């Protein structure tokens, strides 16, 4: 029964390795548990400064343990601890305020500029859809029911009298549930936009169809009003919120097309990398779309029934459109000027 020389010494030194460092690991674990629950503000300055030091000491312990220790429970503990520390420290968590600020000052307009080609295509498709819708309903009014779901038509159809149609444009319409209806429209439109975006991954085909359909509905409604000589008035009624809303839906479609086309034609990147890159630009644009739709909902809920002059309606709608275009495409010059 001879014992290999030095076995006890190895046992001793590995036990002291753990004993010496255990306090640091525990301290790191406790700090992590605190910062994961509350904001880093809850820590004192010393604790905040010690966080990266403790993280590195835990990492070095892990390296030592992997190389010298065969205690798998200890290694598993250190791996989990280091991973938590890594995700916290390198998670690049900026404060909510800088994130929101960055989004409005830089990320959002940049994403829309990045999508400029798709936005043009999307706007073009809306126009094509509108012309097709107009032409279809003009040639046969039964197309109207096929294009616009009765629940959204709100009693407007080719057989309505000019008076009924006019009352929708200028009356106080939905009555008391007005703003409720606006909230409903907002969520409905956002859901349509999310679909136009999310379905884009099927090589952009569904996005194109959704945008065309949206244009068709626009053209169909326009036709029944134009046939009664109310085209100009309808334009005012629609444009007060419609410029914002249609632009937003066009951008959502553009975001979907970007994803679809980059999956189909990834260029120099791998298909996965191209998809991931497109997905991130498109997602930023989509948050912007939700913000725009919120604006459109507010304009619709507040402005449409209270502002009844055609000129005022056109100027608000045109103003909003100008505002968006300036913000998306010209804002960058201001930033360059500031350095």
């Amino acid at each position: 029964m001879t014992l290999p020389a030095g076995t006890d010494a190895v046992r001793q030194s590995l036990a002291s390795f753990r004993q010496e460092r255990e306090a640091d690991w525990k301290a790191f674990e406790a700090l992590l548990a605190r910062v994961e629950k509350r904001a880093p503000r809850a820590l004192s300055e010393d604790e905040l400064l010690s966080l990266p030091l403790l993280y590195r000491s835990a990492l070095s312990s892990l390296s030592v343990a992997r190389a010298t220790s065969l205690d798998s429970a200890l290694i598993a503990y250190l791996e989990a601890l280091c991973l938590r520390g890594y995700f916290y420290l390198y998670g690049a968590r900026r404060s909510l305020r800088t994130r929101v600020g960055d989004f409005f000052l830089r990320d959002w307009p940049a994403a829309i500029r990045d999508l400029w080609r798709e936005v043009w295509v999307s706007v073009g498709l809306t126009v094509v859809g509108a012309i097709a819708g107009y032409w279809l309903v003009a040639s046969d009014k039964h197309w109207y029911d096929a294009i616009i779901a009765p629940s959204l038509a709100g009693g407007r159809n080719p057989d309505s009298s000019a008076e009924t149609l006019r009352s929708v444009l200028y009356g106080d319409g939905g009555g008391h549930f007005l703003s409720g209806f606006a909230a409903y429209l907002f969520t409905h439109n956002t859901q349509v936009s999310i679909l136009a975006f999310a379905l884009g991954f099927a090589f952009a085909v569904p996005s194109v169809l959704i945008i065309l359909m949206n244009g068709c509905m626009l053209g169909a409604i326009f036709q029944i009003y134009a046939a009664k000589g109310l085209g100009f008035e309808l334009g005012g009624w629609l444009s007060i919120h419609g410029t914002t809303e249609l632009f937003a839906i066009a951008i959502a479609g553009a975001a979907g097309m970007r994803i679809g086309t980059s999956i189909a034609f990834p260029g120099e990147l791998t298909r996965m990398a191209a998809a991931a890159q497109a997905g991130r630009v498109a997602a930023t644009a989509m948050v912007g779309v939700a913000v725009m739709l919120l604006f459109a909902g507010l304009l619709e809920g507040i402005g449409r029934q209270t502002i009844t002059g055609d000129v005022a309606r056109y100027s608000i709608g045109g103003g909003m459109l100008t505002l968006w275009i300036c913000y998306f495409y010209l804002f960058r010059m201001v930033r360059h000027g500031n350095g």
Partner: protein
Amino acid sequence: MATARNPAALVRPLVTPEGVDLRVKLADAGTRASGFLLDVVIIIVAAVVVSLVAIFGLGGLGVQEAEPLFIVWIIFIFLLRNVYFIAFEAGRRAATPGKRMVGILVASRSGAGLTLDQVIARNLMREIEVFLPLSILAARGGAGVADTLSTIFGLVWALLFSVFPLFNRDRLRIGDLLAGTWVVEAPKVALVEDLSLRKDRVAARFSAAQLDAYGIAELHKLEEVLRRDDYFAMKAVAETIGRKIGAKVEPVDSKAFLTAYYGELRAHLERKLLLGNRKADKYAR
């Protein structure tokens, strides 16, 4: 599934800027499904509670006064459906409550920090993966026009997307693919006692030949058995080891014997390790 057969197939390298490979483990499909189901339960419970409050509010107030409540209700349901996942995953822990309960979180595939646009991209895709087919089904079912064909279509659609993670190596759903993210395990592991420090009454010493009988793989299995502390398992293992190294073990002593053997074997193998010989298993020299 590769998952069931070989857990090592789900380990991916993650090298920190300090140069240490943290070897993240991807969450398997079952864990992710249970995390998602927990989230769905939370969402549904919240929606039902709020809707009940809203309904009683509408009943109590007149239609006039109830309108603000109605707006709040619409927006709340909308937020629940669309913002719940985004808000929690963009938060400090990068996980929804359901994910947190099963010990997983969302991480960027590049190893860099998870950004807001990634979280948004992966969660907007959930809309077509789950909510779209189910809401169409619900709407058609509600209107009484859900024929067999459309039901099957909706279910197949949802099923296709939900099994998508099983057909790629990294367990990505479509949303992960587009956002450049994956879901990894981040369990909270407690620091447990060092088994080789256990003092038991059998102060057995083993010869070099007896300690050479096993390698690291067997040592880790032995550690597992000792930590599980199951009498019959320990008895069986002690008998096997005793037979192999030619030692006589009484059944009542099996735990003490195994503890002593574990301590000696580990020290022996760790000594070899220090000298540059990682004896992977009993077949290695």
